[in-house]
């Protein structure tokens, strides 16, 4: 953590929201020495404290992003850690879990520590790197889970690459138990998905694009649930996007297996029609699905099958995207829009505000064993202030940070971040 020197801050006239405790009430919050000192209906102003009048805006724990890719190290033309931090702060994110499948994969303790330290040096964003589950994220040989965990690995994954070999996945789930950690899987059966660039079906057929059948996701989920059962390991499925996979995850949870999952805003806000006219900004991995799968993801957010919403940020350069659809890089920028698109489900009546925020704060914190993500007295003052009603429009080219490849380009949103604080220091707004 950063050495601390800022003055005390008193937030007044706030709508305090703490999903962990269910708190939703008007009041004040005091930050002292970078920690949450107190909150309540009305607090006195301590000597020398800065007062921030929230004007009725929401004050909530800073967001914990379970899944984002950084361009650095290796693809700085797409995004640097500095530019990602700028976008994260603008999006209300104070903790970001970085995928290890960078150009130079994070399969070595020194590399992992480098990324973590870069985050600490920023002071605006905690970067918690995942360790590569296999060397070079190549899916063959396990990496050094113990040493990587000592160096700060939050968990293990091959990032955007599925661990396709069942034996390797079994070993990874077993071995991770020794270190109290878990494996994050990109749930897509690689042989079935090979060459595909869109969800298989009428849309892809008409566009002449090679399809990936949605079953590529559910069959990988089914396999890994079976492996979780025999290893007693913990598997976490990333960016789950189909109803069939979510049904399997629900059953596994009911059975008591250690199975968790997240999804990302594109999968509950967009469907496959977004790729019409060969719009490469909407080319994602997994690909955007049919409307019925989008609705299934919304339902799973409501019923608790999904444990967290992650930005699934994948920075891409314009030249990575200005290509014929099949050749364009998959992935969307997501840091600046994850809150706004999640709030669209609140405004749409699908989720309560507390439930929506829980998926971005205390629930991922619990999964990762973090003390942040809550308005707890004594916890680091990682905070976001947002106006629930304020409208804005996502415009690629005008987003904070370097990566502009938003699949939500042109989408109007309600709910805008007004300020972000990291350990009591204002980092945005």
């Amino acid at each position, binding site marked *: 953590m950063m050495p601390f020197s800022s003055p005390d801050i008193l937030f007044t006239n706030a709508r305090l929201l703490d999903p962990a405790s269910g708190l939703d009430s008007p009041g004040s919050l005091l930050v002292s020495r970078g920690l949450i000192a107190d909150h309540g209906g009305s607090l006195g102003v301590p000597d020398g404290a800065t007062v921030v009048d929230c004007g009725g805006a929401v004050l909530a724990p800073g967001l914990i992003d379970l899944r984002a890719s950084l361009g650095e190290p290796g693809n700085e033309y797409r995004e640097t850690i500095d530019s990602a931090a700028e976008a994260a702060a603008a999006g209300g994110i104070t903790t970001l879990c970085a995928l290890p499948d960078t150009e130079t994969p994070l399969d070595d303790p020194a590399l992992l520590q480098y990324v973590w330290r870069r985050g600490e040096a920023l002071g605006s964003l905690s970067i918690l790197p995942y360790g590569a589950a296999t060397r070079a994220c190549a899916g063959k040989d396990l990496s050094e889970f113990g040493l990587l965990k000592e160096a700060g690995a939050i968990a293990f994954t091959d990032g955007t690459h599925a661990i396709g070999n069942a034996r390797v996945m079994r070993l990874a789930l077993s071995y991770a138990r020794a270190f109290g950690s878990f494996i994050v899987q990109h749930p897509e059966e690689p042989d079935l998905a090979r060459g595909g660039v869109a969800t*298989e*079906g*009428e849309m*892809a*057929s*008409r*566009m*002449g*694009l*090679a*399809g990936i*059948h949605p079953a590529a996701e559910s069959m990988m989920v089914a396999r890994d649930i079976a492996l979780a059962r025999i290893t007693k390991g913990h598997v976490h499925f990333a960016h789950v996007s189909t109803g069939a996979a979510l049904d399997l995850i629900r059953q596994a949870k009911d059975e008591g297996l250690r199975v968790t999952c997240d999804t990302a805003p594109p999968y509950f806000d967009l469907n496959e029609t977004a790729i019409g*006219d*060969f719009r490469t900004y909407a080319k994602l991995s997994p690909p955007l699905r049919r409307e019925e799968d989008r609705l299934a993801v919304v339902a799973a957010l409501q019923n608790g099958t999904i444990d967290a919403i992650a930005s699934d940020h994948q920075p891409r350069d314009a*030249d990575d995207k*200005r*290509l*014929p*659809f*099949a*050749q364009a890089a998959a992935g969307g920028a997501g840091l600046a829009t994850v809150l706004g698109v999640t709030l669209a489900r609140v405004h749409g009546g699908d989720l309560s505000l507390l439930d929506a925020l829980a998926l971005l704060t205390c629930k991922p914190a619990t999964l990762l064993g973090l003390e942040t993500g809550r308005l707890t007295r004594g916890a680091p003052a990682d905070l976001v202030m947002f106006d629930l009603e304020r409208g804005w429009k996502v415009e690629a080219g005008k987003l904070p940070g370097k990566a502009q490849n938003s699949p939500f380009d042109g989408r109007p949103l309600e709910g805008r971040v007004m300020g972000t604080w990291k350990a009591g220091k204002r980092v945005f707004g």
Partner: protein
Amino acid sequence: MIAYPHRHLLALQGLEPPYIADLLDLAESYALLNRSGKTQRDQLKGRTLINLFFEDSTRTRTSFELAGKRLGADVINMSVSQSSVNKGETLLDTASTLNAMHCDLLVVRHAQSGAPALLSQKVDAAVINAGDGTHEHPTQALLDALTIRRHKGSLENLVVAICGDVLHSRVARSNIHLLSAMNCRVRVVAPPTLLPAEVERMGVEVFHDMKTGLRDADVVMMLRLQKERMAGGLVPSAREYFRFFGLDAAKLAVAKPDAIVMHPGPMNRGVEIDSAVADDPVRSVIGEQVEMGVAVRMAVLDILSRNLRRNARP
């Protein structure tokens, strides 16, 4: 005739029947002129037509070249080999080069679905899709429709069987869109491994057996099977494919007695079509398809150039 409402011809999906009928009527008149020997026109005088081919093609490129020249355009052929693509020049670098040359009409063939659509967003020229990946090949479907219309009088209620590798065929997709729009009954006949997912939702009847799929057909349209499909495991062998899905006299016998046989070329004789059928002077209209290709492309260039004139640069 009503004015064509678009700047480009990128796809037939969604093109309304009156515009299709107009294009076919104009193409028919060019076909008659071409046959009469009065071939030289001046509709495109002073216009620059560039054939931009990222994939090898002799037939389509030559056909566009001839069509452009007959209408008086300055025609330039640019073959962009795979090697220069691999050197890193992107499609959009190419677009800015073409803009600098003040190209009016741009004919594009590319191995990737959607590539002409991408180019059309960046170039000043009217773009004609001459085949993009497995997406569409609009002028091929137009020339097929013209050929059918000349033989059958009308497209209305005809039974057209499209046979073979529909999965990888841009020709099949464009034909399905056009023929369905013109009220044909379109069938696709292929093993399931060579059909796109949910092809039935494109308004076609699906058959996996030639003898039922060809029954009472007015038109039998064969598609090329590329050799690499066999390497990819979609079809076990050429001999098995020919036995079950290749068109020979026995399979053709279940179609209507006056059914015509079509193929977009180039043919794999003995794979998807038997030479005796391909060369049958009565049933096969494969040669006429090539002839109609020039007329159709003249019509397309003519119609798109009318919209150019209206929006002419100073």
